[in-house]
């Protein structure tokens, strides 16, 4: 009696879920064009969706993607073959940020944060969205608003600076840094809001962190009880100070800083940057820097480590699944859009990287390339030469890793099978 009842429960659970996890989907012969570590395979979930930004995946496997200038795309794999057959589009206004909290789907345009209530079992929300935060600064450059929730469910929203290094004139030879105290009251930080209260202004939020240029990549680590983040570092040191930096120097400076982000963290922008070669924070040329001068110890937070310059981190997720081998569990995957500011040297970083964490929730301080060949070419002279650029990244309920592309709109699902694609297929 009991076993039969259990069988019924399992059958009901499978019926209720749009994704049948029992049978692993078969990967594409060429892994959707990606190169992966041994044992990993990939396949294309959906293609040609337009310029995709960040991604969120619901507990039932439904995928939600922000598009740069349109609305939100919802994808569902109804028959369990891994490919999305059902597609819905809703909303408008473009933007970048998207995140789930319970039945709520939060998303951001460049000047506001909204939420839709999702109905269990339905891919598209039934009603209109509700505005949670309004009138955020939006001035063309770095206007994208990434959103995240802390362990208590509070909403964090980033407001980047519309400049490179607050130079006057910004990005120009000999630029002098402007006074940044006032600027940082409105830009270059995360602000924390009540996730349930409609129509809050920035002034009604609390500044959580400061001194960052622009951040899209942030994820809450529930083991550590902390946010981890990667900042989008400054451009054009060689343009601003050609007497100090060659374009070859600029291609490797500054590091893209990986930080733990806590209340009142100050990451040192715009007056400093992280030099990965000296492993030191030094003053920026706009603020009297000579490549050597350092701020007083403890004045700004140092990164735990840094990624190569200009790689442009776009979205990060912690791996809480069990599908992937042990070393990946509890670590972070990060989608990098890839550089533009290494010219005339080749561009780099069009990849997904992995950051291992220990069981206590601390990063080991290293990183490795996980998924690569998004660009489809080994020498990328210009971003226009790239076939795809990683942007959205999320972990599915079965422990698969999903990646979304900003150029044509391809979505990949990466799975662990223990087998590699044949040399022929590659």
């Amino acid at each position, binding site marked *: 009696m009991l076993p039969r009842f259990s069988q019924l429960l399992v059958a009901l659970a499978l019926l209720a879920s749009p994704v049948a996890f029992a049978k692993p989907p078969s990967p594409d012969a060429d892994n959707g064009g990606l190169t992966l570590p041994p044992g990993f395979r990939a396949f294309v979930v959906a293609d040609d969706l337009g*310029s995709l930004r960040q991604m969120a995946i619901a507990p039932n496997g439904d995928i939600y993607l922000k598009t*740069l200038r349109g609305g939100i795309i919802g994808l569902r794999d109804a028959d369990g073959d891994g490919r999305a057959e059902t597609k819905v589009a809703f909303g408008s206004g473009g933007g970048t940020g998207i995140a789930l909290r319970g039945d709520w789907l939060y998303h951001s345009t460049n000047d506001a944060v909204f939420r839709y209530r999702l109905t269990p079992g339905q891919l598209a929300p039934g009603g209109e969205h509700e505005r949670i935060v309004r009138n955020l600064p939006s001035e*063309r*450059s*770095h*206007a994208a608003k990434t959103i995240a929730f802390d362990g208590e469910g509070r909403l964090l929203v980033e407001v980047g600076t*519309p400049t490179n290094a607050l130079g006057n*004139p*910004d*990005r*120009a*030879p*000999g630029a002098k840094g402007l006074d940044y105290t006032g600027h940082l009251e409105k830009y270059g930080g995360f602000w924390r809001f009540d996730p349930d209260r409609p129509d809050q202004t920035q002034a009604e939020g609390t500044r959580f962190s400061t001194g960052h240029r622009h951040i899209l990549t942030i994820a809450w680590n529930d083991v550590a009880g902390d946010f981890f983040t990667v900042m989008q570092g400054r451009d*054009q040191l*060689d*343009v*601003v*100070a*050609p*007497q100090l930096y*060659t*374009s*070859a120097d600029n291609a490797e400076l500054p590091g893209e800083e990986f930080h733990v982000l806590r209340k009142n963290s100050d990451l040192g922008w715009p007056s400093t940057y992280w030099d990965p070669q000296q492993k030191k924070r030094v003053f920026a040329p706009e603020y009297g820097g000579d490549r050597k001068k350092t701020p007083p110890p403890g004045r700004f937070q140092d990164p735990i480590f840094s990624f190569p310059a200009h790689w442009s981190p776009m979205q990060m997720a912690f791996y809480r699944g069990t599908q992937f081998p042990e070393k990946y569990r509890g670590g972070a995957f990060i989608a990098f859009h890839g550089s*533009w*500011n290494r*010219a*005339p*040297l080749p561009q780099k970083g069009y990849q997904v990287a992995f950051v291992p964490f220990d069981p206590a929730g601390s990063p080991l301080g290293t990183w490795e390339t996980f998924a690569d060949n998004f660009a489809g070419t080994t020498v990328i*002279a*210009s*971003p*226009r030469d790239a076939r795809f650029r990683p942007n959205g990244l999320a972990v599915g309920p079965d422990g698969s890793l999903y990646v979304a592309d900003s*150029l044509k709109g391809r979505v990949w699902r990466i799975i662990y099978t223990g087998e590699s694609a044949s040399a022929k297929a590659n």
Partner: protein
Amino acid sequence: MRVTLVFALALFAAGCARREPVLPVAAASPPATNGANLYAQHCLSCHMADGGGVPNLQPSLIDSLLAPGDPGALLALILRGSAGQPAPNPEYQNVMPGFGFLSDAEIAALATHLRKNFGHAAPPVSPADVAAARAQPPSG
């Protein structure tokens, strides 16, 4: 009717002080008035060696209607940057600084380079054209 604004050309800084030459520069004429050198020093960083720009950040010079078009509009953009434009194209997020610190001869050589390369074959611009553009009140 959609006009791809070229915002510009570039940014950069005087490359003459570089410790090692990393740019493939054309060697012939004196650097100050050689359009290819000026492009490499001031424009290539953002608009790329092939002029293709960067999607969503900096416009392509190849697809540009402004580069081979009315010299006055092109020179106003080079002199004052994209922030000085009456209607910057919202498709591109980065702001181009002005290059008014270059001489009339340098800007003429640079503008002429843009008008004769990247698939364009438009008439050259003279230093007198640049002087006249400098004298125009900013339109932004």
